[in-house]
């Protein structure tokens, strides 16, 4: 039996969540493995949150924020960009595949892009061993 990957997507409330919403209202089919959690800003997604998500058994974490210059809080996504990049390196050195964590920018008008990112990411995660088995 194939394990279905569990994916948690943190989507910012100003760009990416409406983007996901647009994908829904436009009837674009995207991977059902993703669980979207709305956050006020992608800058709110702390490394602690990402690590706990992985530890609780999520196979992949997707952080979605506004494009540069569009952040409602001006530089929230700048911080995320740096943090996620650093955390990916840390995960790599600690023995967790950095591909499990991905950061993407999705604007409110990019429903199709949202669906594409989610589908691609699900396929990437499908190639990896389930996190629960890794941590067991």
């Amino acid at each position, binding site marked *: 039996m194939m394990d279905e990957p569990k994916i948690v997507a943190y989507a910012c409330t100003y760009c990416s969540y409406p983007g996901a919403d647009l994908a829904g209202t436009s009837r674009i089919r995207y991977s059902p493995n993703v669980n979207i959690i709305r956050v006020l800003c992608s800058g709110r997604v702390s*490394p*602690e949150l990402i*690590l*706990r998500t*992985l*530890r609780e058994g999520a196979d992949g974490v997707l952080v979605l924020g506004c494009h*540069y*210059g569009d952040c409602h809080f001006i*530089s929230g996504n*700048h*911080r995320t*960009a*740096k*943090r996620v*990049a*650093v*955390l990916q*390196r*840390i*995960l*790599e*050195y*600690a*023995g*967790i*595949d950095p591909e499990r964590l991905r950061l993407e920018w999705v604007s409110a008008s990019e429903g199709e892009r949202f669906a594409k990112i989610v589908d691609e990411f699900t396929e990437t995660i499908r190639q990896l061993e389930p996190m629960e088995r*890794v*941590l067991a």
Partner: protein
Amino acid sequence: MTRREPLRKAIEGLLDDVEGILALRRTSGHVAPHLFCDSGELDELAVSPKYPLPGTLRLIQAEHPEAQLAIVCRGCEERGLIEMAKRNQVNLDRVVVIGLACTAEEAEECRCAKPYPSVLVDAHVGERAEPVVDKLADELRQKDVSERFEFWRQQFDRCIKCYGCRNACPQCFCPECTLEEGLWVERGEVPPAYPTFHLIRAMHTVGKCVGCRECELSCPAGIPLTTLYALIRQEVREMFGYEPGADLEEQPPLVLPAEVES
């Protein structure tokens, strides 16, 4: 103890200008940090083992912000002071720094990449030892992700969650620590769940960790934390060009917005 006498000579004259000199003292066989205020006490001056004096300086300055002090600093302690000064934890204007270079043996033991001070002051005592390459770090770089996982899993499974690494760290000065919050680290669970506890700490050392090895020295399980942080430091250097403790002006990368090409 060939460096003890030169160190004593270097700091003796300072006692007239400063209110106290922060260094190590050996009494009844034990070495502990001490604020030397009187030249008579200098008979008990000690050089080693190494102890993170900047952390002690921070506590003294918090109580006595006006005091003029001096501190004996090794290479790592100097880097630590610089990072703490950037975060307003110590006031360098009221401190005279006396540099102490580590011996080759000490550098070897710490796998230290820069075992001497050179930014605030040059070493007053001791000769600059050669930088040491962390062989374990090189070994881990060669491994693939699943081998690294095995390695760290074995190491972290020995953790007894004593918080020694955090308590000993001169850079850990937050009044409230994420590692004590039940939301991120479950209470009463030993060893702490991987990867939260250790990687949260690793993440929080980014841009701060100066590789002083206090975490590793204090760890009763002997987890080679210095190596993990050294690997991360190397990555941060490559990504942002930032070296903790190398310079007083440059701001840590994670507090600044990203540079975006428009």
